[in-house]
């Protein structure tokens, strides 16, 4: 039995302790926002927070979360669905293309901004380099993080 806190709620799940957090969250808990990309901690699509720290859930067994807090993209917005400044910036800068990697990008970016409210380009590089975006939205990710941090103005729609 795995006991941990999932997005603020205590859960007890009868799962193989070796099963990665990714598959427990997706297939057992039914939360599909966290994505499978590579299975070897190379792409960051599966990023969740384990006790507040971004981890690659595809390569972290659920046993490592025993008694801990696991936070996924589903818990990023507020209880009534209100978006964080980071999510709003992702919309204003029109970041996503296919969108598949963006849950992981946002989880990495949220951890960055919590620890470093005014990140430099080098800070952004080092915090986000573990997240691959095959669509190539990196310039927009960089800009959105700066917008969310109040370091750059948001894009206006009628360009």
């Amino acid at each position, binding site marked *: 039995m795995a006991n941990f806190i999932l997005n603020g709620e205590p859960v007890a799940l009868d799962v193989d302790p070796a*099963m990665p957090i990714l598959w427990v969250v997706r297939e057992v808990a039914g939360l599909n926002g966290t994505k499978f990309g590579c299975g*070897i901690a190379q792409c960051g699509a599966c990023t969740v927070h384990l006790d507040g720290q971004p981890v690659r859930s595809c390569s972290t067994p659920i046993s490592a979360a025993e008694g801990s807090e696991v936070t996924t993209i589903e818990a990023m917005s507020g209880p009534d669905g209100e978006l964080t400044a980071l999510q709003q910036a992702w919309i204003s800068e*029109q970041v996503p293309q296919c969108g598949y*990697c963006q849950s992981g990008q946002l989880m990495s970016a949220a951890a960055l901004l919590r620890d470093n409210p005014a990140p430099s380009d080098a800070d952004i590089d080092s915090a*986000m380099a573990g*997240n691959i975006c095959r669509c*190539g939205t990196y*310039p927009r990710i960089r800009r959105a993080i700066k917008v969310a941090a109040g370091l750059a103005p948001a894009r206006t729609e009628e360009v």
Partner: protein
Amino acid sequence: MNDTLSAKPPRSALAKWSRRGFIGAGVLAGGGLILGVAVRPGNPIGSLAPKVAGGEGEQLVNSWVKLGPDNVVTAIVPHCEMGQGAHSVLGQMLADELDADWDKVRVMQAPTDGSYVMTDTARAFAAPFTLNAADWIEPTWNGLFTQVARLADAMITGGSSSIRTTGQHQMRIAGAAARQMLVGAAAQEWGVAASEIETRDSTLIHVASGRSAPYAQFATAAAEQPMDHTPVLKTPEQYRLIGKSKARTDIPAKVDGTAQFGIDAAPEGLKLAYAASVRPPVPGTRVARMDASRAKEMRGVLQILDMEDFVAVVAESYWHAQQALNTIEIEWTASESPIRTTADQFAAYAKAIDEAGAQGGEEAAAKGDFSSAFASAATRIEAEYKVPYLAHAPMEPINCTALVEDGRCEVWTSTQVPLMVRTAVSESLGLAKDDITIHHPFLGGSFGRRLEAVYAVMAARVAQATGYPVKMIWSREEDTQKALYRPAELSRFKGGLDAEGRLVAYDNVFTQRDDPAEASVPGIYSIPNTSVRVAAAPRHLPFAAWRSVDHSQHGFFIESFVDEAAHAAGADPLEYRLAMLKEAPRHAAVLRKVAKMSEWGQQGEEGRGKGVAIVESFGTIVAQVIEVDMASGQPRLMNAWAAADAGYVVNPDGFTNQIEGGIVFGLTAAMYGELDLADGAIVQSNFHDYKMLRINETPAITTAIINSGTVPIGGGGEPGLPPAAPALANAIFAASGKRLRELPIAKQFA
């Protein structure tokens, strides 16, 4: 090519298109309007169409607009959404012609299944149907919906085509026709001339009498109005939404984890089993024998299947299935392919080119007399370029969920060709097409990867064999090693320069020609004596259209060789190109624009260099300048500037996002992309050895759009890619003097 129309070409191209279409309208059950546009066969919706086209007489594409009693306009879009923004921008095009309130416009994916379209969607929407029989190809409403169902058989998304085909020739026409019919109905009711009625924000307005009404009030009456098959479309100065960077409708769901991709399929009421699979490492081989004794004993395993062309484990979770699969020892049959290694592949190419000699091979393009021009040239240059096999590596791994029950099959999958999937599943399972339903939510990237159906057929076969509803997921390793590929290629050039350094003789021979046919032709340039030849050679790995297809190889070859010619002439590479673009004013304008943006000619810091390239693909001209820093001895990508002329851009920010993405995709391939062969199998397996450009390696990107007004307009999804690799290689030459004739680049500086 040589698309050098003046800035204000005749608009008759559009009218010609629309006359090939037909329009039908009906009344919604609840009192709304539904209107559709289909296009007759023969229209070029990209050259991929034949790969999925149904029989003779089938329609290619179709779109619908639905106006609900709540005044909400729904654009029903036949294309899939894979990140290119087609859903949103097609809605934008329709809404503009309809003068709809953008806040009350919704976009809906057209259902895939033909019978579903016919029965559930269309008939429910349009029960009390009326139509103007004389105008119809099939003068019954049954006939209309038969056409709708058939055209769905060719649903396809690719070729950078959604906006310039479906958008220009159907969504806009549907919107304009619906508006015209609403105006006609209001004019009749109010007893005023149609020309006196204005439309704005989904409202009909008659200023003189002070009357106004929401569209929905006239929806039912509008369906009885005569239909004009060539409704007058807006001119650019009349646009309200087209040309604006409206925010994409699919993005909000992509920032809170609620967007549904194929891999997220969770059919209500079904307890899924999960499958992992492994296909033969060498194309064309099969399972000879296997030992699954360990896997049978492993936790969560439900069934182990030898399907001859693959082995699958079905388990209670995907992870358990994959873990068990990893323990199975499989022996595969022997391959008959003589190509076992990367060296074998390039040797086969070189042999074909050698055998073609100075004149042989199939002619792809010819002009003037190369041989005598080359013989009398003041300077002669020769170069051989090569590029490797590449995988698409979309972030969403290949997957499909399938249920086979009571002679019916239901499929949930990410695909660019949903009806091709339906046909393939039908043939494999021996079920009628009408008994198969395909659901295709968002695609987590594709880039050409999901233009095939094999993975859906595999999942359906496993579901049929086991009786479980099965979600099959390919590991990243499977997708890297067992897919379809951008071909490796070898390309040889000879060039002759006259006494003034002008490129007057150009000969190029290579081995693979797929699509588009003009990709290998340096048609934008004025070169008096040109010879382009294909010396066909076998390739070991199966072909896939990979973002920009043949342009991904030939963009690098041609633009590198032209750069070499410029340096051989002692000329500035950008000025040298401009001199060859005197007959191509649009291309020259794009090149001048990017020169200005990049401050071409200004030397940056020590160790830096700039390179330029220009490629026209999918109707759009893109020039790029890339600045690289070689101070550390390894290339560091500093800046990319792009100028693009697509004729007219419908959503500038969406287009810019595609150009940025195309550049990053192209630079990824240029820096890292490479699949090697050993013992007939692919060596690379995952992102640790099939590397992607990351945020810290990505240059700053600046994009400028030129709206030259040329029609037909060009595409946006692919044209950003082809100039990236040659611009980078040319920049490295400028900075270091090292000419790169082979991709990828990074390992050459390791």
